[in-house]
């Protein structure tokens, strides 16, 4: 059933269809609308058999989810940015304990400077926490991925993060085909825990493990993600059979066959990239793109295959590995290390900076001429930077960078990009 609704609402309604039993909520932009909507559904009784817990922090939120999941309840929470960092300890704990929690990340930058807008720094900070990380390209996919996430998580006993771009997706009104309760019930079996806190059959969960077994435990976590590599495409296909939509999977290619230049990216920016690709191809440029849905586990083999024909790869990242460049790019390098290919890292869209088709097309043209730095920053205001650097060399106490740059640029908020 189609609806023109906000992405957050679509996710909330889909999560509700998955019959979660415990939902933990702590407000943080831009994820807030999701839990608000779910809270309303629980209160109104629309979502029955579910406990909605208003916690005192993100750390508390995931902790409540951990307890609920260990007690055999299907558990869900959502967060973003600072919130994800504040729950970091629990993030590792949930995966370490193998608890199939599903968490939505409304991707947002991390301060300081404090910034509420979109980029991928938050999810990236937790990429090695042992969670499966799925990136949504559209709000339709964001909604669909949650259904798949619960099934995947519970099959493997491993938590899953569904990452959707903050504001760009969470706050966007789109035409969404919402699943029906019958479809979801038929596709997502009730939660059958691998381990459960049950007085009738007591176990001790969360033992202290020393050098004698810790490495094995970690390997098994890795192995679990390797199994996810097999399950994700299967589930995506099965999902299509029931719901008639292509959502999820490890990655999606766009005109990569025979393309000399291939762009790789995560999330919603792929839409704009495809627009750019179309226009460039119309100009006869040999270019295609790959949208990676499963960032963890990272589909090395599929990426390698998709890049078989590429002469060069442009990895567009909404996060920065300070002091290195790109994280996704590093992973892509690993996928194709056997072949000598140029891999350009492009850092774009940090802290909500709009990524425009115009900039992209210009960027890709440069790439085609191999005129790119190996690490390129898209639409960076070099004047502001040069001025600040000059200030710093001149005066030791040159003041807070962000404020200085704002002074240089003047009031930004009314500007478009």
């Amino acid at each position, binding site marked *: 059933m189609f609806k023109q609704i906000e992405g957050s609402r679509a996710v909330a309604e889909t999560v509700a269809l998955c019959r979660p039993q415990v939902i933990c909520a702590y407000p943080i932009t831009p994820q807030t609308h999701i839990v608000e909507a779910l809270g309303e559904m629980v209160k109104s009784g629309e979502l029955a058999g579910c406990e909605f817990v208003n916690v005192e922090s993100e750390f508390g939120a995931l902790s409540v989810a951990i307890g609920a999941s260990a007690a055999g309840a299907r558990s869900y929470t959502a967060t973003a940015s600072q919130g994800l960092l504040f729950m970091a300890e629990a993030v590792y704990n949930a995966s*370490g*304990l*193998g608890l199939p929690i599903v968490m939505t990340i409304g991707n947002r930058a991390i301060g300081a400077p404090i910034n509420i807008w979109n980029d991928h720094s938050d999810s990236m900070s937790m990429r090695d926490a042992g969670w499966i990380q799925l990136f949504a390209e559209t709000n339709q996919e964001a909604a669909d991925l949650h259904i798949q996430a619960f099934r995947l998580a519970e099959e493997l*006993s491993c938590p899953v993060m569904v990452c959707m771009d903050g504001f760009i997706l969470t706050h966007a009104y789109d035409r969404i085909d919402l699943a029906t309760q019958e479809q979801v019930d038929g596709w997502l079996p009730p939660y*059958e*825990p*691998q*381990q459960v806190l049950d007085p009738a059959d*007591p*176990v*001790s*969960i*969360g*033992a202290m*493990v020393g050098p004698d*077994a*810790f490495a*094995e*435990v970690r390997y*098994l976590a890795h192995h679990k993600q390797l199994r996810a590599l097999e399950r994700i495409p299967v589930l995506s296909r099965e999902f299509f059979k029931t719901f008639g939509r292509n959502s999820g999977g490890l990655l999606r290619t766009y005109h990569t066959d025979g393309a000399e230049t291939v762009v790789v990216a995560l999330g919603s920016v792929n839409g704009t990239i495809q627009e750019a690709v179309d226009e460039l191809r119309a100009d006869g440029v040999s270019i295609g793109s790959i949208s990676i849905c499963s960032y963890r586990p990272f589909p090395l083999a599929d990426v390698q295959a998709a890049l078989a024909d590429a002469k060069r790869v442009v990895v567009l990242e909404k996060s920065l590995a300070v002091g290195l460049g790109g994280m996704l790019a590093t992973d892509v390098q690993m996928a194709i290390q056997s072949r000598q290919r140029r891999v350009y890292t492009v850092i774009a869209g940090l802290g909500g900076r709009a990524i425009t088709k115009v900039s992209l097309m210009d960027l890709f043209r440069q790439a085609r001429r191999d005129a790119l730095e190996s690490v390129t920053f898209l639409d960076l205001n070099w004047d502001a930077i040069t001025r600040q650097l000059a200030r710093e060399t001149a005066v030791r106490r040159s003041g807070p960078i962000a404020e200085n740059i704002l002074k240089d640029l003047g009031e930004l908020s009314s500007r478009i990009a």
Partner: protein
Amino acid sequence: MEKPFAITLDVGSSLANHTGSWRTERPVYVDRLPPCNHACPAGENIQGWLYYAESGDYLRAWKSLVENNPLPAIMGRVCYHPCETGCNRAQLDQPVNIHAVERFLGDEAIRRGWQFTPGTPTGKRVLVVGSGPSGLSAAYQLARFGHQVIIYEAGPAAGGMMRFGIPKYRLPREVLDAEIARITDMGVSIHLNTHVDDLARVMQEEKFDAVFLAVGAHVAKRAYIPAGDAAKILDALAVLRSVEAGEPPLLGRRVLVYGGGNTALDVARTAKRLGATETLIVYRRNREKMPAHDSEVQEALEEGIQFKWLSTIKKATDTTFTVEKMRLDEKGFPQPTGEFETIEGDSLVLALGQDVDLSFLERVDGLEIVDGVVKVSARMMTGHAGVFAGGDMVPAERTVTVAVGHGKKAARNIDAYLRSDVYNGPTKHELAAFDKLNTWYYSDAPLTVQPLLDAARRESTFDEVVKGLDENNALFEARRCLSCGNCFECDNCYGVCPDNAVLKLGAGKRFEFNYDYCKGCGMCAAECPCGAIEMVPETI
């Protein structure tokens, strides 16, 4: 579904970790000697019978009591209870009122008609001379061994000093008769008015395999007091005896009693009851030095008996007595001061102690007499094989309780002697001193005071002065026992072990340590209320 590796564990798995190996000290359960038992001249297992009394099982308590003493109703009245002097509870609040519980059990037994059962006959004949406490005690014990016992009693009634020395108001005769009857009911025969003038002959003619001598001490000590013919001077025992015989002597209104022992008090209080308006006890030393038991002095004072300390009687006329003041020297002995005074009085009763009549023993060879008493070995045997002696006629404190103890001890040795064996009592445990206890666990419970007959009636009648306890407060008193030195299954060790290393074996079976897991922290020993756990070093 397969549980996650390592992070999820099945219950009970830690039992594989034997923490007992950490131990440097190990706890062990011990039994220590409670001070009450330690102090009891009759060798009663007081804590033992209190244990049963606590749970209201009076029959078992009584049975346990009479193992060592066949006269609980009497003992509960006349014993000066050294057990209570030793009781650790005295250091907490007041000692357990042991004698009152003992008396309760004795009276209960009489009320319910509980009986003794004699042992299977051995065919041996034992003569007991004297039916006082030691004689009765010995006869009873011997009968339990199955020996045939014959008691020869010189007096007109059984009981010895219990009857002719202790006044009714302290020991009602029906109680005395009942407990003697219970012994004769076992088959012990008492021949009254039967004076043994020649023991050797009796033994030989009547073929006794052994003899126990318990004739007591009945010959009053005398002091030389120059006196006019009209002066009325009697001895205490004669007075008490005639009162018992129902022919009280005429003592007049003002009676002086000379002496400081229990007999002096008995006779003074008796005189009061016979109508004396003024009764004065004259004693050469002070109250502290007075041998009489304090409770009796207290009761006497309540009854209006007066005392003249540090005084000796020098001269007597028909109505006056000259008294010399004394002072105690540094050794505590009274020394004359040369100061005199005159006291008016109608009669003087001498209570200066008693001697033993040893005439009937003259022809028993080997028998040794020292300081007017018969010398006995540690096994209560005189110099003559097969002849044992106890009670007031042997060197010891002269109390009913000591006598009962002698009787028991002698009987056990006689039994061994008859089997040409030697009796060895159980080895005594280490004393359970107060510092071995953890008294926090005992709730505060002050002693129950026994009701007393009001003073008015005491002056005129021979009704029993001290009343007994009813069941409730007897139970309460029994439960005040701290069970010093012996496990009473309070479960403290079982509960306070942080390692669940104590096994509870069930009611009456106590506990065991599970040394596989006991780390030897010693908390069980520290928290054992009664000091029944000891920490001993591990041999490493």
